[in-house]
């Protein structure tokens, strides 16, 4: 009797082992997959080119940073009129607070916009050149959808509410990066780059002046 029982147990174990093995080599779907939500996939829709703009931006510094933002929207009263709970002698019931905590990894590109160079900014005499560069600026702030990480989300956040939090996160990123003196560094690098370019262009005496940024 015991021998038959052991035989059946081993047989069941073996069958289970074979199933697990087949799942490992992906010949069978795993048990977890049967009750797993299927990912929502977007359709491959067309990409439409709306604008093509010519640029002349000299990008000299990229700053990377990670910022966290926490936003709480307090739940309002269930009653439209604040007098109602008092009149009915019931507690002022409120909706649950909504909370969204986002982590954003972004990058900021800084440099000078050479499209702002005017004829007055360039002075050439023989083999000497003098140039006044436009003031350095933040050219792009990049936090793409893949750069956000939702750490906590409670309550129902509308598209507009979530977007407002992302915009706050972007502002926070800009403030953080500006504290690293990114604009001064961008101006210094632009000066160096332009001096090298002008020297390579055959000028013997090169003077590049940067315009200080006013913050």
């Amino acid at each position, binding site marked *: 009797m015991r021998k038959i029982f052991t*035989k059946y147990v*081993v047989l069941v*174990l*073996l069958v289970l*082992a074979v199933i*697990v*093995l087949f799942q490992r*080599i992906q010949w069978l779907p795993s048990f977890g997959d049967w009750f797993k*939500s299927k990912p*929502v*996939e*977007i*359709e491959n*829709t067309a*990409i*439409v*080119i*709306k*604008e*093509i*703009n*010519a*640029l*002349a*931006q*000299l*990008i000299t*510094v*990229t*700053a*990377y940073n990670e910022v966290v933002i926490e936003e709480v929207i307090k739940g309002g009263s269930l009653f439209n009129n604040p007098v109602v709970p008092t009149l009915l002698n019931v507690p002022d019931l409120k909706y649950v607070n909504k909370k969204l905590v986002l982590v954003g990894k972004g990058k900021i*590109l800084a440099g000078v916009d*050479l499209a702002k160079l005017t004829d007055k900014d*360039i002075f050439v005499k023989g083999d000497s*050149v003098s140039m006044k560069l436009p003031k350095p600026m933040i*050219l*792009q*702030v*990049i936090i*793409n959808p*893949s750069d*956000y990480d*939702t750490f906590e*989300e409670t309550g*129902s956040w509308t*598209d507009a*509410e*979530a977007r407002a939090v*992302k*915009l706050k996160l972007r502002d926070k990123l800009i403030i953080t990066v500006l504290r*690293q003196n*990114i604009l001064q*560094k961008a101006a210094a*690098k632009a000066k160096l*780059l332009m001096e*090298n370019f002008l020297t*390579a*262009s*055959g*000028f013997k005496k090169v003077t590049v002046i940067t315009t200080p940024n006013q913050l």
Partner: protein
Amino acid sequence: MFFKKYSPVLLLCVLCMSCNKKEKQLQQVMALQQMNDLATVEYVVTKIIKANDNKTWYKIGDRKILMSCKATLTAGIDLAAIKPEQVNIEGKRITLTLPHSKMISVNIKPEDITEAYESVDVLRQSFTSQERNGLAIQAEQQINASIGELGILQTAETNAALFVNNFLHRLGYETIKINFDNLATPKN
């Protein structure tokens, strides 16, 4: 006896189960990085994000969403890649070899992703912020994958040649010839 006989099979199964852990790569990023890029073109592209959540068999009811997404793609050239031997000057004549263009950035701003329509059945919950962001990530991946077909790199080279030509003209050169480095290939 039986265990002894089948122990290699069981051992193999245990080994298979234990060999699934992948080491997570640590991402290292410099806080400040110096660059030498001249951005010469910006493409503004739009895309409709269309999704229908009806694939899970045990969830009763559908959820549909339509969002519009706008991305700004920037391309240009690396100015530091111009070497002295790539510049040839003869009086008022200059010949310059520029490096091929490259993608500089793909920027999808939060304000450029807007929900246009959402339909949720009674037994389903509306899309969370995280789920909406997940759909936007897929759109971002599709945009990244189609960069090569947009012709942005070619436009970036044309604009770079035009800008450098005008710039050198301002510096007093009368005959300007601009080539692109044939050895290097454009990179996305």
